């Protein structure tokens, strides 16, 4: 998983998740030269998981919702080791065919006098498609291979009903 915990869930409306950026994680080592920063692609993945859980929860995890399109991804600042990323995903549209979400990425940097206020560093808008409703009429396995146990586990671990 690329999020540590869900801190807020308003069903069918928004989900807020956090991720601590740790030097203990191998993907930080040597990335972007000398800097130990969280790769941008993994920040997009963190938002995709946050928004994906919001979309999946809205449908009771019955649909096989997959990330179909990154409609927008802008990141204006790097997240270095020791900081915390906060992902806020908002459900913009949901129907039988899929869903669209808008997301804000905030950075909480460590400081000598405690954590600094969260600062917006990017926006990530996503489009999810429900595989079983695809226009090509292609069939997929009956089991929900998209929303595995890990997604429900992080909801439960964070104190939310996993539906």
């Amino acid at each position, binding site marked *: 998983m690329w999020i540590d915990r869900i801190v807020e869930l308003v069903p069918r409306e928004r989900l807020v998740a956090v991720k601590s950026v740790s030097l203990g994680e191998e993907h930080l080592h040597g990335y972007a030269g000398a800097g130990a920063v969280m790769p941008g692609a993994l920040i997009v993945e963190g938002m995709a998981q946050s928004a994906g859980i919001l979309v999946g929860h809205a449908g009771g995890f019955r649909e096989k919702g997959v990330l179909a399109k990154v*409609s927008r991804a802008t990141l204006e600042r790097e997240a270095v080791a020791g900081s915390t990323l906060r992902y806020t995903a908002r459900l*913009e549209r949901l*129907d*039988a065919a899929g869903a*669209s979400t808008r997301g804000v990425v905030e950075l909480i940097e460590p400081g000598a006098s405690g954590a600094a206020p969260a600062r917006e560093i990017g926006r990530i808008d996503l*489009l999810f498609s429900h595989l079983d409703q695809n*226009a*090509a*009429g292609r069939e997929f396995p009956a089991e929900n291979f998209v929303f595995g146990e890990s997604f429900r586990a992080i909801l439960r671990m964070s104190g939310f009903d996993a539906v």
Partner: protein
Amino acid sequence: MAMTQDEIFGKVRGVLVEALAVDESDVTPEAVLTADLGAESIDFLDIVFKLEQAFGIKIGQGELFPDNVRQDPKFVQDGKVTAEGLAALEQRLPHADLAALRADPRVGNVGRIFTVQTLVKFVDRKVNAS
């Protein structure tokens, strides 16, 4: 108050610029969504969502872009859209101009019926219906 074709076109152009990351100048009425503007299948869902938001309308699944026509053996045979397929498209897509597809019904030409003008006509029917 009814929206004019120019007003609808302006909003449709805004939707396509955002959904497909194309320049405004590329979005002409005759531009084909796939061949000229680079739209892929998943972009159609994005366009539907954005049109709904821009115009405050509800678009049913398959209402703007048809479902399952190219995969149905009744509608496509030997790489061409059958007469039955053309009739189904005409019935499902009254906003589309099928003349070119009738003249050359190769299945690869189905995508060419979806031009910017097709979207403008579709929205016009939805918002000015009453």
